[in-house]
């Protein structure tokens, strides 16, 4: 029995596995470099403090939403109600605080409670009633929309000055909101790597049956993911309230649900669950924010921006898909295919069947020639 071969086969795939997140950060670096060059050509400086601050504050809002979206997508779910949860949260936060600094904790608690409750409802409907997540969260979004349209005719509530600092203060060149977002991202990474529920999110997304047979309460994991997702969207809503100074129902038409999904997928998380992580999502968010900043500095027409964003998202995901295909390919046993003019080592196609490694090859079967089909 050749016992060393299998570890050898395991090594290359581990290297490839690390690759996806690396690739996303390389893409981020590429976007920054290319963007900086283009901006420099048109006489600006992308990396100036003002532009960096703008990029970071742009990223914070989407960052919260995408962080939450990562959890549900890892579980092979998705959340189309986040935009409405944001809008509702901004209103609840602002009206609860009602301009009184003493009521800030109350406002935050109310938002966490309401948003968490919505997440709980989403999770319960998906996990217990077995309704498709797409339909569940679409329906939930409509329900919240109906409530918002009926209850609030315009901006409502007032955010006390102290809380508005959340929207405006900077620590050096890092806006407070972005710092909080980065902390939340770090907490998200830690959560997925060190909590059992985090581990189980990968399992539920990878295969719900396997997870259940391993004794994981899949429903609870799914519900937890949705509660976290909605609370993250609630925090984003609070941030909006802090920026505007008041709650606004109109946020829901800004398309955050689809933007956040795009950021997550751009970050290398598999839309069908079980693979990916928060680190990639952060890169995805930063890529989208940096693109936005570049377009802004270059004063690109806002509608043309939409077009470019659509193209970039598709192109990025197409590149990941290509890597995915390569990853699945089986290892070659014979090199030097005849039809490409001999780029390979060029073994003679008519080699006698029993030349060099006859007996030793037989053992390799154990080690992995079965392939991973």
């Amino acid at each position, binding site marked *: 029995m050749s016992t060393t071969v299998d570890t050898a086969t395991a090594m290359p795939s581990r290297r490839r596995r690390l690759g996806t997140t690396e690739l996303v950060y390389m893409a981020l670096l590429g976007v920054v470099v290319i963007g900086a060059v283009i901006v420099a050509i048109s006489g600006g400086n992308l990396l100036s403090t003002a532009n960096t601050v703008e990029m970071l504050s742009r990223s914070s809002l989407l960052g919260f939403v995408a962080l939450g979206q990562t959890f549900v997508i890892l579980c092979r779910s998705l959340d189309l109600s986040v935009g409405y949860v944001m809008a509702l949260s901004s209103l609840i936060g602002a009206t609860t605080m009602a301009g009184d600094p003493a009521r800030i904790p109350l406002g935050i608690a109310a938002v966490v409670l309401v948003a968490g409750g919505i997440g709980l409802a989403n999770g319960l*409907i998906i996990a217990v*009633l*077995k*309704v*498709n997540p*797409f*339909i*569940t969260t*679409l*329906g*939930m*979004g*409509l*329900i*919240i*929309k*109906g*409530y918002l*349209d*009926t209850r609030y005719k315009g901006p409502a509530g007032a955010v006390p000055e102290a809380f508005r600092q959340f929207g405006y203060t900077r620590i050096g060149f890092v806006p407070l909101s972005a710092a909080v977002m980065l902390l939340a991202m770090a907490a998200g990474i830690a959560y997925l790597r060190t909590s059992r529920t985090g581990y189980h999110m990968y399992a539920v997304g990878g295969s719900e049956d396997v997870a259940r047979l391993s004794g994981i309460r899949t429903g609870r994991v799914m519900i937890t993911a949705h509660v976290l997702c909605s609370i993250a969207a609630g925090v984003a809503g609070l941030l909006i309230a802090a920026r505007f100074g008041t709650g606004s129902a109109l946020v829901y038409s800004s398309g955050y649900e*689809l933007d956040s*999904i*795009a950021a997550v*997928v751009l970050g290398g998380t598999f*839309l*069908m669950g079980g693979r990916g992580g928060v680190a990639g999502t952060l890169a995805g968010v930063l890529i989208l924010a940096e693109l936005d900043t570049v377009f802004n500095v270059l004063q690109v*027409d806002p*509608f*043309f*921006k*939409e*077009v*470019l*964003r*659509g*193209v970039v*998202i*598709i192109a990025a*995901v*197409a590149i990941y*898909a*290509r890597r*995915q*295909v390569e990853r699945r390919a089986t290892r070659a046993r014979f090199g030097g295919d005849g039809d490409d003019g001999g780029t390979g080592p060029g073994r003679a196609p008519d080699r006698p069947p029993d030349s060099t490694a006859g007996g030793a090859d037989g053992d390799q079967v154990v080690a992995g020639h079965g392939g991973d089909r």
Partner: protein
Amino acid sequence: MTAPRPAHRSSGASRVAGVASALFGGGSATVFALLIVIFAGIFAMNPSFMEPPSLMAFIKNAAPLVVLAIGQYFVIVAGELDLSVGSLVGTQVVIAAALIDGEESRTGPVLLLMLVFGVLVGLVNGLITTVLKVHSLITTLGMMLVLYGANRLWTGGAPTGALSEAFRQPGRGGVEMPVVRLLPWSLLILVAVVIAAVVVMRRPYGRVLIAVGDNEQAAAFSGVRVWQVRTAAFVLSSVMATLAAVLIGGYAGVTAQVGEGLEFAAITAVVLGGVVLGGGRGTVIAAMAGALTVEALFTLFNQLSLPSTIRPAAQGLIIIAAVAYAARERSQPAPPVDDARPEPARS
């Protein structure tokens, strides 16, 4: 050994049951029940609704969504999604208004151009999804952004031009007739589309399409060109969106908001019809019934004089409830494939 056993027995009763299950089966019984309940509700509120003219008005109003739902059905049953149809409808209406600009003579060429544009959008959606292997949610989301941006970029945010009278006929016009007074063109178009869709699904293409949605690999190994079949589904969806644009443009005219949210309405309608997201299950008739149900729901809200703002909430509740009910039906324990058999194999 094995006693030869007739593999197919067909008595009259089982044949009727077969036809019924072909039409209404596969988890779609819920939608027909719901449709009947809603219609009964509308009728109870307003008995005149069942009079032909108001029924015809209902059809005229519902036709675009039914057409979109049928297009979406082709994509969903093949295991994909098309989020770009809403912005495609909007773009097509804007194109029509800008290019026709009130000139009757341009109607024909512009319609042709719209058709070409629709096919093109479907081809791009399909090829990116099948050849570049991008998940269709992302592909069509990207297409939605591109179309939305391009549309606004072109018009500067406010649509220009005007539709011709001929262009508006299919959406709002009809044939003068006794009883119904006006038989709308949209009803005739709708009937034609539904019949065509049912025929397509009973043809080899339709069966191959469902097989691709059910098990892509088995289909490919059976000689199906999966990429072609799926791409064609996206093209069908875009063409249906183009037709819906003609109907909506005629019925409601040109605004900047035309088409907004229609993709979700269409997906909702299809899923409400018991068609499973992920592919391989459900009938086109049920998808059509789903669209009619969504529209009937809106009519019921009108009858109840529900404030327009609360309607989305009611809609959301009903969708979740209906799909949950259908899911409950489907999750009845099925016998495991390996052990349970309808009859013992040997006697």
